């Protein structure tokens, strides 16, 4: 088992005919992901990468029974694409797109309250990977292997690195979830922990956070007393105040959102804190 996504999940790709959409759909298909269609307005009725293309998500859902979508459309249109996916009845929407205006995402979050059955991952995230089964997004599958470690992260490359290190150490992953680097997100750390907590095949958890916001602090609280053997890693310890460190969400404001307070929160909740990705593996291997 895994969380959110498995080999049976019927996936549609929004923006399938674009360069990024095409490349990563091929990667998803290579892993065995059940991509049942794509959406690209104006290209309805054609076939791309062996799957039918539709003009709207609603049509794709009607004709393919899609349950989940991956979004690869440009930032100015991505918020609309998320809402279209939710309104079409999808239960999982993974938005890879980076650079969506924050006000757009605030509106999307309010919109999604009307669709409680819809889970959004991202935006500005690498997506979800369930090793050996399926992925939606851009996480490279070659470093992953099936196993008991749930991985949840605000970062992309740092996640790939961690997954590779886990695999090298013989620690496979149940699911890898990149929640994204934006300040206004779909699933939070806490939401994903909730899912891992209920997944019988996940026994360990690697949480990769960074500066900005207080989602890590809330996650720490949620992990207090959890059955999951967990480790946390926070990047951005040396980031100066008021500077956006790449991710739109990675910013320390005043003395809020610092790596120090986040690390302290985890320690206070009984969750060990790693200083490097190698240490993540060491700590999990010991626990």
């Amino acid at each position, binding site marked *: 088992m895994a969380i959110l996504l498995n080999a049976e999940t019927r996936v549609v790709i929004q923006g399938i005919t674009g360069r990024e959409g095409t490349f990563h759909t091929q*990667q998803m298909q290579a892993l065995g992901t059940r991509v049942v269609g794509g959406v690209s307005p104006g290209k309805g009725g054609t076939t791309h990468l062996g799957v039918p293309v539709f003009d709207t998500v609603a049509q794709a859902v009607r004709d393919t029974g899609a349950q989940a979508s991956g979004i690869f459309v440009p*930032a*100015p249109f991505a918020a609309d694409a998320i809402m279209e996916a939710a309104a079409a009845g999808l239960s999982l929407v993974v938005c890879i797109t980076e650079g969506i*205006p*924050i*006000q*757009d*995402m*605030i*509106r999307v*979050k*309010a*919109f999604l309250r009307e669709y409680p059955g819809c889970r959004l991952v991202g935006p500005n995230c690498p997506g979800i990977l369930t090793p050996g089964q399926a992925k939606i997004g*851009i*996480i*490279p599958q*070659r*470093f992953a292997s099936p196993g008991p470690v749930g991985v949840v*992260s*605000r*970062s*992309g*490359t*740092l*996640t*790939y*690195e961690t997954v*590779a290190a886990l695999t090298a150490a013989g620690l496979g992953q149940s699911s890898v979830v990149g929640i994204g*680097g934006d*300040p*206004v*997100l779909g699933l939070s750390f806490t939401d994903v922990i909730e899912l891992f907590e209920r997944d019988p095949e996940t026994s360990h958890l690697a949480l*990769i956070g*960074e*500066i*900005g916001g*207080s*989602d890590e602090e*809330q996650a720490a609280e949620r992990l207090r007393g959890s059955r999951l053997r967990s480790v946390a*890693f926070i*990047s*951005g*310890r*040396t*980031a*100066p105040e008021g*500077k*956006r*460190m*790449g*991710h*739109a*969400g*990675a910013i320390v404001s*005043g003395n809020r959102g610092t*790596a120090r307070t986040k690390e302290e929160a985890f320690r206070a909740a009984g969750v060990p804190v790693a*200083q*490097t*990705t*190698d240490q993540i593996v060491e700590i999990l291997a010991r626990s």
Partner: protein
Amino acid sequence: MKLLEYQAKEVLASLGVPIPPGRVARTPEEAAAACADLGPVAVKAQVPVGGRGKAGGVKLARTPDEAEHAGSEIIGMDIKGHRVPLVYCEAALNIAREIYLGITVDRDRRANVVMLSARGGIDIEQVAEETPEAIARLYPDPWRGPLAFELNALVWDAQLGEHVRALVPLIGQLYRAVTEYDAMTAEINPLVVTGEGTLVAGDAKLETDDNAAFRHRDLELRYGGVVEGDPFEVEAKRRNLTYVSLDGDIGVIGNGAGLCMGTLDMVERAGGRAANFCDIGGGARAEVVENALAVILMNPKVRGVLINVFGGITRGDEVAKGLVKARDSLGMELPLVVRLSGTNEEEGREILKQHGITPGASGWEAAQKIVELTR
């Protein structure tokens, strides 16, 4: 984009917010002329940071002579690393009371928050710590915007009911800065109640969302060039790089924001100090690396460079070739340590070694090496 005070006030005034008469001055003479026209003025340094008052960047001038003097003192001064390019001369206000009004993004709630407080004129963070109950808050539905009854309740909650008729429309106008200009922060502090009982914006802060810049090309055209930012950041922006200047001497390049931040952290743990944050993204293409290296080498303080790349979909040997090419085309002679992992990492490291670049198997090892080489 952080607007300067006078820019923020121009934008807010266009939305209906009352502002005092004022004029921009780029020279002491212009400041004198402004005072001649406006009467007693506050001569205010225009910098995109707070705390200019304490730094001596605001002076009252009763006469054109005083204004000229104030202008000559303030223009060109340095405030928290920002050279003051110009001053804003604004008619002095008859202040009866100072209110705080601000709108910003509440990350935890994934929503905008409107904050109103009768304790204006001081830093809102300070008010929030000392007397949190003195700040009334409203989280408007982003589709509806703040409703009239919600704004009324906010004003009464803030114990500012006597100003409700003027405050409700004014808050609506400030909120339009959020919806029409994608403001991440829109703040009027102090919002001045004058001796005559009218409201007017004493100071104004407006920071817009860079992700929404495509909707507001006009703002960038009008105000983009005024602030004299860090020269390396300006150059990096021109080259479409995600770059932040820091104050150390080791240039850092990483692929991915998290990995890059983690690399800075390791450099510090190894006893060094990074000169910058530079995220070249997932692909690590040769021309992007070359651009990044070029900007980093512009900084004379840089004594060595650490590159930390985890090859995901991109193959390590290709990344290595790109790195060598970039270094050679720039004629770089400073120490260069590269940590290369992921796909085809062995082949990649071999290529680096052949070209005299120190490879590191882990970020931590690489960080220690560059610190050692630049000591």
